[in-house]
Structure formats: C-alpha cells, structure tokens
C-alpha cells in the first residue's frame, strides 16, 4: 500500500511517502492510523490525535471508519486549509 503524508503529518514522520503492508487486522483507516503509530517515534507523534487527522483513499476524501478494501494509495493529513 502506498502511503502519503502531508503538512505536519509529513513533517513528524519525516517523509511524504512510503510503501507499507499493514497486517490483516487493519480493516479501516482508523485501524491503519493506530497501526502506523507503532512504527516509529515520528509515526507515533504524527498519529497521536486521530481526531485531528483526515484521509483520502485513492485520491477521494473518506471518513476514518472507511474500510481500506483494496486501496492502493492512502493519504493521511490534517484538515485542509487551502484558498
């Protein structure tokens, strides 16, 4: 699975993109966030407050309880602030 990070999520993890294969038990985006938090101190810091995180699966915004299914690209980021 291709993972993308933006804004302070990216900064805390130290990279904007990585390839990871989460275990079977990781069913939805919220599970993925919890699992990512175990990977490194940077990941832990980035995933510390899931209520401050938003996500997109294959470039569509989704709620955090969305099943990953056969997602190829999952992005995790703070609420958007463009415009």
């Amino acid at each position, binding site marked *: 699975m291709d993972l993308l990070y933006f804004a302070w999520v990216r900064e805390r993890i130290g990279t904007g993109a990585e390839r990871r294969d989460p275990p079977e038990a990781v069913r939805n985006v919220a599970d993925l966030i919890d699992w990512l938090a175990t990977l490194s101190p940077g990941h832990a810091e980035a995933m510390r407050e899931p209520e401050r995180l938003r996500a997109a699966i294959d470039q569509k915004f989704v709620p955090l309880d969305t099943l990953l299914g056969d997602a190829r690209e999952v992005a995790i*980021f703070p609420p958007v*602030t463009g415009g």
Partner: protein
Amino acid sequence: MIRVSIDDAPIELGVEVAALEERGAGAVATFTGVVRGDDGVTALELEHYPGMTEGALIALAEVAMQRWSLLGVTMVHRVGVMVPGDRIVFIGTAAEHRREALEACAYLIDRLKTDAPFWKRETRGDAARWVEARESDADAAGRWD
C-alpha cells in the same frame, strides 16, 4: 469551458479574466485571495496533494457549471512559497446573467476551502506554523448542500 491550474508561478489575473470574458458571457465574477501581512506573516507556503488536487478542483467546477448553467469556470491555486500581497487563489465564473456568475463564484471558493487538498504554513520571522482549519469554513461550505 473549465480551466484548472495549480502552479507555483504568480497568478496572472488579467490573462485569466480575459479568457473568461472571451466566453461571450454578459457577466463575469471573480474572487481573489491575497496573502495578508497585517498580522506579522512574512511568508506563506502552500502544500498540496499532487494527483488529487486537480481532480478535486475539476469536480467542483463541473458541479458549478451544471448547477448555474455557466459558460466558463476558472480555478487557479498557487502553491509553494508566497509573500504578503501575492495572490493565493483565483476563482472566475462566466454566465449570461450576474446572479449565476456571482453565486457560482461564492460556491466555488467556499467549497475549495473544504474539498481540495491544500495546506497552508505561515512564517512569522523565524517561527513557522501550520494554519488550523476553521469551523466557519465548514459552515460556509455546508450552506450549499
């Protein structure tokens, strides 16, 4: 006509408006967001999600084109580093009548704020911080549902 652009070059407002006016519309409405320096901001950096951003803007433009029978929509968002006075975003709409152009323009900037993957980082002297999303933006976007 839909024109969407995400670019780190300055936004050329005159060029964008001229292209909209050439649609033969009677009414052209625009919104331009400009970097403000009044609260000590010395630089503003815009990050986005390449690949997703353009599609998100095109999807918004398509909805607006249909909902207000527009003749043209232009959405240009700058990314990268900007300074006070620089244009961040330009929205332009062309329609036969003013009501459609004005409403669609307001719709597009409201929705861009919540539906497009951009993130702002403000620098004040040596300190940089990511801008927090505002609840008022979600409210403004919601009024179009």
